[in-house]
């Protein structure tokens, strides 16, 4: 728990500046399923990257490489939008 700041030390109007926020761990929100990709089927359309609400789709340059499970909340959007069914939702082993 970060230390709470007195009003005078807070940025005016509560503006959040680069570096102000702790990294999010929305991965803790998953409730049983997580996405996995079969890269051999992936056509790199990046629809999953576009739709993922948590920026959990990792790219190397412009190439899809996998998921960041610290932030993936298991919403399944990527699996639904993938045009070639390269993404499956599987039992979450807590990884």
């Amino acid at each position: 728990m970060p230390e709470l700041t007195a009003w005078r030390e807070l940025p005016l109007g509560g503006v959040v500046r680069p570096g102000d926020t702790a990294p999010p761990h929305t991965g803790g929100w998953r409730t049983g399923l997580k996405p996995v990709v079969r890269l051999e089927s992936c056509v790199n359309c990046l629809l999953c990257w576009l739709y993922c609400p948590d920026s959990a789709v990792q790219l190397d340059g412009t190439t899809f490489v996998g998921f960041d499970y610290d932030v993936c909340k298991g919403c399944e959007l990527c699996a639904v939008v993938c045009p070639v069914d390269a993404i499956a939702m599987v039992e979450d082993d807590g990884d």
Partner: protein
Amino acid sequence: MATEARILTGGQAVAEAMRQIDPDVVPMYPITPQTPIIQGFATFVAQGRAHGELVDVESEHSAMSAAIGAALAGARTITATSSQGLALMAEVVYIAASMRAPVVMAVGNRALSGPINIHCDHSDSMLVRDSGAIQLFAENAQEAYDLMLIAPRLAEHPDVLLPVLICQDGFTITHSAEPVVLLEDDVAREFVGEYRIPNSLLDVRYPTTQGPFAMPDYYFELRHQQLAAMQAALPVFEQMASEFYALSGRRYHSVEPYALDGADHAIVCLGSTGGTVKDVVDELRAEGEAVGLLELRSFRPLPRHDVRTALDSIRTVSVLDRADSPGGAPPLFAELAAALHGTEVDLRSFVYGLGGRDLHPEQIRAVFTEDSGAYIGLRGAPCPA
């Protein structure tokens, strides 16, 4: 330096001020009696004499929402409204203040519905009393023009960064033509200066999140920042007003005493009524009555210490409210009661002029000299207190 006086309404005078300020963005939605302001400015844009981006929005709620976005993106932004427009906008006025968006807004004060009415009282301004927006009241068209030029400087000052409302009485000022002296365009422009805010939303090298959610652990502190900004606004206003005085010869203060020296009875009021009270004070002084006026230029922030200093040795103070609060104290009276708490002042409350009812000099005279009723001009005996 000043130009010749011109015959302008308050609405036209404020439109002239906007032309000289030449704001970058003007989101606007018409409503009587402020319409001449945005219409006047739109005409200047159509003539190529002002260059701001007019945004025709579908409501005042949208006008203030667009104004916040524009102001925080880095554009000097002005809008205008009245009555129901301000009521519809109220939610977003609070947000403008909390996001520290220095939006300037001209208000043509008009009674809130209902019953529906288009004429002046101050109920609309009072609705956003606690929003965190600064409210300055003009007595006449000249003051409306002058305060409008001071407004961007005040709003954008780094110690302030709050919306500023320049209030002028609907019709009484917005639509009444009188002599107004404008500054030369280049003098006005130089006085207003460049628009600067600490964090532009469009600064991609320093991206910020603005207006974030604040839970119980931070809401209180962020609200307190607005209080600090309001307090800072008083000395900043005095500073801007003194710079403006050097250019115009017209000096403004957050509270303005008139014939208060030696007075044993003073009226306190906002807006155009101050002009009428001054005439009555002159007459009564000539008759040997020790009466005076304290005109509040700034209602928010309420200059509590200056009010107390000006009035604490006066026997009787009559507060004239152009708004009421059914079941409670009228707003200006409540402020005065707080400011004068613990003094010996005999404080009296009067409500007048609701829905645009005229206040005549003889009625003001009666406030000073007789035991007149607390609801000036009301037909029938008022409810027992």
